[in-house]
């Protein structure tokens, strides 16, 4: 135990520190409130009787029932969720493998591949969407199918723009992995696949997890690219919403959209809270273990 010399702080510095922390704290609160403000309004609107949403005329759960009754909306929601899940799984697996590939390249090639990888990350959604639209159109012309655009092209497009995020989050972790670990595993009798699954993947799992989360977020929220490559028939939630924005007569669509998003936000919030509780408990346990071992 080292003894710390404590010097009494002058009062003026104490006050300025207090003021400083109050300013910091209120700034943080205001910005986070601003970011969450639309979500709060969406939750309020989802239980508002007023269809236009200009007045709060009373509490109702009617919209939640109507939401499950709307077949077009439900199919859009189903598309959104299934595309997001499939794209997340596919892009996480492929992105991890591709990151392994990029990691084993020599320096120059590696740099080139990273630049190529960053194209979809930086490119404007409109341009990415238009590019994919043309590729699918041309491919359709080549194989002789005029109307290729649909669910499959939307899924491929989502996998395409999700992979770079997985690669970017796995690569730095792969960089930290000891190059000899893999060889050691092979020497100890692992098959190449066993060494990959039991040694490499566990040591980069935080990167894989971050990548998967980003991929899911991107896919789940995407509008522009889906809109350009899915043709007119298949719709995800964003496309459904945009269509109802364009046809002005469909104000009745809005409360259902609010209801759906209120559910999503509340589920996401719950996951966030549970995750934090788990983390805090883990840290407490770790501390206990450390104290016991001392």
């Amino acid at each position: 135990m080292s003894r710390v010399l404590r010097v009494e702080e002058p009062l003026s510095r104490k006050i300025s520190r207090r003021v400083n922390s109050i300013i910091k704290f209120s700034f943080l609160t205001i910005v986070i409130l601003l970011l969450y403000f639309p979500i709060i309004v969406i939750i309020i609107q989802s239980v508002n009787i007023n269809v236009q949403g200009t007045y709060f005329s009373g509490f109702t759960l009617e919209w939640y029932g109507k939401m499950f009754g709307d077949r077009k909306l439900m199919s859009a929601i189903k598309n959104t969720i299934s595309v997001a899940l499939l794209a997340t799984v596919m892009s996480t697996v492929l992105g991890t493998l591709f990151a392994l590939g990029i990691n084993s390249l020599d320096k120059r090639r590696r740099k080139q591949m990273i630049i190529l990888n960053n194209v979809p990350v930086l490119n404007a959604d409109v341009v990415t969407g238009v590019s994919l639209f043309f590729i699918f159109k041309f491919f359709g012309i080549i194989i002789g199918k005029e109307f290729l655009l649909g669910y499959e092209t939307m899924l491929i497009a989502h996998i395409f723009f999700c992979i770079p995020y997985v690669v970017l989050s796995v690569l730095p972790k792969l960089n930290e992995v000891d190059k000899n670990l893999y060889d050691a595993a092979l020497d100890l009798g692992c098959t190449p696949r066993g060494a990959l699954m039991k040694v490499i993947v566990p040591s980069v799992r935080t990167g894989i997890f971050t990548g998967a989360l980003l991929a899911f977020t991107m896919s789940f929220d995407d509008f522009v690219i889906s809109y350009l490559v899915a043709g007119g028939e298949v719709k995800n939630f964003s496309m459904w919403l945009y269509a109802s924005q364009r046809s002005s007569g469909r104000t009745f669509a809005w409360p259902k959209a609010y209801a759906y998003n209120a559910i999503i936000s509340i589920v996401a919030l719950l996951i966030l809270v549970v995750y934090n509780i788990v983390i805090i408990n883990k840290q407490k346990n770790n501390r206990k273990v450390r104290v016991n071992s001392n």
Partner: protein
Amino acid sequence: MKKFKRFAWPYFFWMFVFTVIPIFLLFAMSFIEMKSLNFSTARFSFSAFSKSFNPIYLNAFTNSIRLALIATVLCIIIGYPLAYIVSNLNITNRFSFLLILIMPMFTNMLLRVNTISKLLKPESILKNVLGISLNISGSEKAVVLVMVLMYLPFMVFPIFTVLEKIDPSLLEASRDLGANNFKTFLKVTLPLSVKGISSGIIMVFLPCATSFTIPYIVSDGTMKLIGNIIEDKMGLGNVISTDYPVGSLLSIIILIAVMGALWLISKIDAEGETLL
């Protein structure tokens, strides 16, 4: 680990098909003239170029750049202090802070844009409940406000990433050598966060300048930024304005800007760590 090289080739092929070929396609498309997407009527022409020198398009370009610039500057002004404060907080888990910022993105962006733009109308639920009427609906102010609210997290993430990586002993050294807090910030922290700020600028400016949903929803379709024009030309809005060559040419112009951003990123952050 060398044998994992074989995983790099399929990725190269995949990226070649979906990014490199389309760039050539867009480039080729801007030199032809045709009716909708009927390639039998296609012929070589510079008509896309002459059509693109339309004052409406030039105006859309300058407006897009101006509004996106304002939004980006506001994002730096709000985002840098935010990232700085949080990186100095004593939270043990940086991931939960990132989650707090990611969380709003799970709520559909179009719906969030719509909700905000409805609040900006003279008659809104804000006026009904709190008695505030903002009444800036459809204006450029409204578009910028929505851009900032939507893209602020993309400014905070990269700045936060670089601030997290600054070695605390550097700051201690600076203080030991006699610099006060402000000078330490100016001479140590700020130069070390340039990488994050540049990534943040790119990650906010490009999507803001090319967004077509935000201006469309906020202005009810009256404001035309460059993204809206490309959308029109690509035949999704209505059939009459469809003109693939012009749309391709405008996309190529955006792509040139993106290439510049790619080059910049490859200089300042070769591993792309600040792009997440």
